[in-house]
């Protein structure tokens, strides 16, 4: 739930990085933490196990600039990826303004990705949130690995799209991040919208800021 604080002149928004275990969610935050100027970020908090697996969440606040004299503060959270941590995973989604699904591109992780995506839809629905109506992007991580599945297959499995009912939105909408691709297009006579996607190698930082900027921009636009 975004909050505009007129007293501190800040716009606060909550972004959640979701996805299967060991997919690179925490690595995304660590890269952001390491790259942004110290004065534009707060302390990074990690509630992790002794083996550095996320137990509850990681948290990192970052300022992404000023709009109309208000600082835009984004609170980045990750969830624990392992299946059995669902109770804590669901808690983190409370009040979320934008979601990044970090998929593990490795072919053998396809099932874990699909299961996590389904779990995300389920947990969001329990709060009454609709992923097709809030800022949502998909990040295909670990693109550098030799066993990475083709983007087309990942898109087909994880981001097949949802039908667009609103007549005003039923028009071809180019994907601003991939020329020649469309976010809204007609498939077999039906209008389908997909979430924007990004390719990344979070350990080296590739694609990390593209993903963050895209979802942050979508969140701010949803307020405008």
């Amino acid at each position, binding site marked *: *739930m*975004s*909050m*505009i*604080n*007129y*007293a501190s002149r800040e*716009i*606060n928004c*909550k972004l959640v990085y979701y996805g299967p275990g060991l997919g690179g969610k925490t690595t995304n935050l660590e890269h952001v933490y390491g790259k942004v100027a110290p004065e534009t970020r*707060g*302390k990074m*908090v990690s*509630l992790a196990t002794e083996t550095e697996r996320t137990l*509850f*969440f990681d*948290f990192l*606040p970052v300022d*992404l*600039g*000023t*709009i*109309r004299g*208000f600082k*835009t*503060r984004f*609170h980045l*959270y990750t969830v624990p990826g392992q299946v059995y941590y669902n*109770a*804590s995973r669901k*808690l*983190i989604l*409370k*009040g*979320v*303004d934008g979601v990044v699904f970090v998929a593990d591109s490795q072919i053998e992780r396809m099932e874990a990705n699909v299961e996590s995506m389904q779990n995300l839809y389920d947990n969001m*629905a329990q*709060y*009454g*949130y*609709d992923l097709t*109506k*809030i800022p949502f992007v998909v990040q295909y991580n670990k693109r550098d690995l030799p066993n990475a599945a083709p983007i087309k297959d990942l898109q087909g499995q994880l981001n097949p799209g949802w039908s667009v009912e609103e007549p005003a939105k039923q028009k071809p909408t180019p994907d601003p991040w991939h020329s020649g691709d469309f976010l809204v297009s007609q498939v077999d006579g039906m209008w389908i919208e997909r979430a924007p996607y990004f390719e990344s190698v979070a350990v080296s930082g590739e694609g990390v800021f593209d993903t963050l*900027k895209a979802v*942050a*921009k979508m969140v*701010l*636009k*949803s*307020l*405008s």
Partner: protein
Amino acid sequence: MTGAGTWSLGESDFQRITAQLQGLLQESNARCALVVDRAGQLLASAGEQLQFDPTAFASLTAADFSANDQLAKMIGEPEFASLFHQGEKESMYLADIGRRVILVVLFDQRTTVGLVRLRVKQTVAELAAVFDEMFGRLASGDGQRGLLEGAEDEIDKLFGE
């Protein structure tokens, strides 16, 4: 079914909240008090200068409360309306306000948990009224809205497009 929505905290509401916190501190002899929303954002604070990162503190507070809410449900309670964490020197008392926000009071040996609890009860009732009115105004669409209305170009510029 959509998203979590948005709300705003105006200058005058902020001042009313801060005044309540100051009254609480004066009468309970606690060190400082903070108000945090359920999504983990700090709304206001009063009292001694905070010696820690308030943003991280706020997110952990909300997580603490959410986790305890679930524990309450598991043992058949609808919620734990307040939590008390006792330290050797420093302690904290947390109380729910209308299931929307959380009041956190930090105190040391200069006061007692009994006194803090007693005074918090009054502040919770008073702040609940402030927040009820605030959210009532937001629900009716009255108040400050549309800060970012028509700001698309500025948003594009911010992200370098």
